[in-house]
C-alpha cells in the first residue's frame, strides 16, 4: 500500500470511528484488537536501518522499505499469558501487568498462535511441522522482523534514541540506570512518537530473524527477514534494552543474538520478552477500526 493511500484511509477512518480509535500522528492509529489488546497500526514506509560507522553488526546503515503492520502497544504481559492459558515462565510474578520474561523464542511464537486463535485469525506458525515454520499467507500474529522492530522504535527519527539523547532515557525506559534490577509494569514510561511503549527498555524483545552480525552488508531493501540458516537452533535476534541494559545497549540500532532456549527444559534469561505484530490489509484495518 502506498503511503498517501494509507494516510487517506487513516484519516477517513479516524473521522468516523468509535471511541477505541485515536489519532497519534498523521500516519499511525491506536486500536484495540478483538481480544481487547491495545495495538498500533504502523504504516508502510522507508527508513535507514542500522548505524553508519556504528558497531560492526550495526553497519552499514541501509535503506529498508516495509509494508504496514499492527504492533502491540505494550510488551506481552503476565495477564495476557494467563488469558491465553499458557504457563507463565516469568521470574518476577508480583504484578500481572509486568512483561513476561524467561520466554523461549518458540514459546513467544506459540503465544502468537494462541492469540491468533482467540481472535479467530489464521495461526502464522505451523505447529505440525518441525521448527513451526511460517505460513506466509496467514493473517495471524507473529514476532516482528528485526527491521519492523527498528522501524517502529525509530518512529521516524534517525538518532540513537527516538526521543533525543540518552539523558532522556530514564523518562522512556526501564534500564540499568533506574530499574532497581527488575522488570516494571508496562506503559509506565513515556511512549515513543508512534504511541508504542517500552521499546527501549523493561525487557528485550524476540524478533523472528536469525542473528547474523554480517547481515546488513547484503540485506535486501524490501522487507528484510534475516538470513537463511541450516542450523536447527541458531541464535535469534533480540532487540531493545532491558531492565539490566546499559544506556548504550538501549540504542535503537543496537543488535544482539540470543540463544533461543528451545532445547532447555528451564530457561533463565530473565530479560527476554516480546511483543506481537501482524500483517494487515486495508480492508482488515477498516474492519478492525469498526
Amino acid at each position, binding site marked *: 500500500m502506498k503511503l498517501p493511500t494509507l494516510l487517506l484511509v487513516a484519516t477517513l477512518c479516524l473521522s468516523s470511528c468509535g471511541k477505541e480509535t485515536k489519532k497519534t500522528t498523521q500516519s499511525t492509529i491506536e486500536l484495540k484488537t478483538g481480544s481487547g489488546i491495545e495495538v498500533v497500526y504502523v504504516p508502510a514506509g522507508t527508513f535507514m536501518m542500522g548505524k553508519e560507522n556504528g558497531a560492526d553488526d550495526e553497519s552499514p546503515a541501509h535503506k529498508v522499505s516495509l509494508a504496514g503492520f499492527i504492533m502491540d502497544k505494550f510488551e506481552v504481559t503476565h495477564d495476557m499469558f494467563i488469558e491465553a*492459558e499458557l504457563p507463565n515462565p516469568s521470574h518476577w510474578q508480583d504484578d500481572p501487568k509486568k512483561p513476561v520474561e524467561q520466554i523461549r523464542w518458540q514459546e513467544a511464537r506459540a503465544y502468537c498462535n494462541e492469540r491468533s486463535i482467540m481472535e479467530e485469525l489464521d495461526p502464522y506458525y505451523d505447529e505440525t*511441522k*518441525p*521448527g513451526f515454520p511460517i505460513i506466509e499467507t496467514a493473517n495471524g500474529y507473529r514476532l516482528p522482523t528485526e527491521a519492523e522492530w527498528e522501524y517502529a522504535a525509530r518512529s521516524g527519527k534517525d538518532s540513537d534514541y527516538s526521543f533525543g539523547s540518552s539523558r532522556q532515557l530514564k523518562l522512556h525506559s526501564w534500564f540499568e540506570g533506574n530499574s532497581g534490577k527488575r522488570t516494571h509494569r508496562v506503559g509506565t514510561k513515556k511512549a515513543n512518537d508512534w504511541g508504542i511503549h517500552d521499546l527501549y527498555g523493561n525487557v528485550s524483545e524476540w524478533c523472528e530473524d536469525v542473528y547474523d552480525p554480517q547481515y546488513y552488508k547484503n540485506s535486501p531493501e524490501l522487507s528484510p527477514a534475516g538470513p537463511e540458516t541450516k542450523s536447527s537452533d541458531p541464535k535469534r535476534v533480540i532487540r531493545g534494552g532491558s531492565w539490566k541494559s546499559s544506556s548504550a545497549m538501549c540504542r535503537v540500532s543496537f543488535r544482539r543474538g540470543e540463544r533461543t532456549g528451545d*532445547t532447555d527444559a528451564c530457561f533463565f534469561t530473565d530479560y527476554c520478552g516480546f511483543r506481537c505484530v501482524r500483517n494487515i490489509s486495508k480492508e482488515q484495518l477498516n474492519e478492525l477500526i469498526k
Partner: protein
Amino acid sequence: MKLTKLLPSIVLTTICCSSSNSFGTLKSKLEQNTHEIVHEAYHDGNWELFISSADGSEQKNLTNTPKINELYPQCSSDGSKICFLVDTGTGRNTIRSAWVMSRDGTDRVKISDHARQPCWAPDSKKIVWLPQEYKKWNVVDYYSKGLMFYDVSTKESTPHPISDKIRHLYNPSFSSNGKWIAATVHAGMGFNHAILLIEANGSKIINLGISGCRPCLKPNGNQITWGSGDHTIEVADIDLDSDNPKVGKRRLMIRDKVNKIYHSEWSPEGKYITFSRGPNGKGDLSKPSTYQGACEMVGVFAKGWNIFSVPTTNSKEIDFETASPGKDYYQVSKDGLSYKEADWLHQTK
C-alpha cells in the same frame, strides 16, 4: 625367554584381565540383581513402557498398545503396581492422563485426565499427581497447578492441604518416611526456580537451596539425587526425619560434558543410580505423538537416548570423558529409541 621380553605381555595380560574382571563385576552384579527396570521408549511410532532385568536383558514391551502412548513409569515400593502417564489425541488436542496398573501391565485404572507426573507414597497405597494448570495441551514440564493424592483402594483423589497455593511443580518424589514430597518448581509459588520439600500432610515448604531440577529421594534412607545441570548429577545427604531438613554433604556423582544426563533414580537398596543420557535436541515432529521442546521433557522424542546405571559405592566422580564402560558405568539399553524416565520395579515383597 628373558623377563624384559615377557614384561610387556604380562602387563597387557594384567590390564586385559583387570578390565575384563571389572566389566564382569558390574555386569554380573546387575545380572544378579533381582529387581527390574521400567522405562519409556518410542517404539514403532508410539510411546510404550518397556521392562527389563537390571542389566538390560530380557527386555520386553510391557504395555504393547500401538494406539495409546504410555510414558513416565513410576513403581510402587512394594513392587506390585506402576503408575504412569498416557497421551491420547494429537497436537494441541492431546490429553495427558495419569493411570495405574499392575506390574504385569494388567488392571489399568485411570487416575485423572489433564494430569502430570505421578509418584508413589512409600506405603504403596497412595499416588501423588499434579493437575495440569489449564486443560489446554502444553508439553512444558512445569505446566501444573495443585497437588493431589489418589487413593488406590477407593480410586478417589483428594487435594493436598495447600493444593490451592501450589503452582508449577514438576517431578515429585516422596520421602521413604512419608513426611516430605520433593519437587522442582519453576516460576511459581514465589520462586523463580528451586528444588522444594513440601510437607506431605501439612503446609510447610522448604527451599533446599540446591540449583537444578528433578530430585529423587532415596527409597531407603536420607539421601537425594538430582540433576544439578544438563550435564551433571549430584547426590547429597538430607535429614528427612527432621522438621526442617537441610541438604548436607554434596557430591558430584556423574558428569558428561557432551551429552545431557537426566532423570536420576535410585535402585531399591540405593546401590545404583539409573539415569537417561543422550545428545541435546528439541524433538522430532515427524514422529507421531511427539512434541517439540527440550528433549528431556516427557513426550519429546530424544534421539539416541539410553538408560545407564552407575554404582553409588564409587567414591570418585564418574566423568564420561574418562570413565570406563562396564567398570564405572553400565549401559542398560542399547537402541537409543528415546529411552528415558527409568524407574526400578522392586522385587515383589
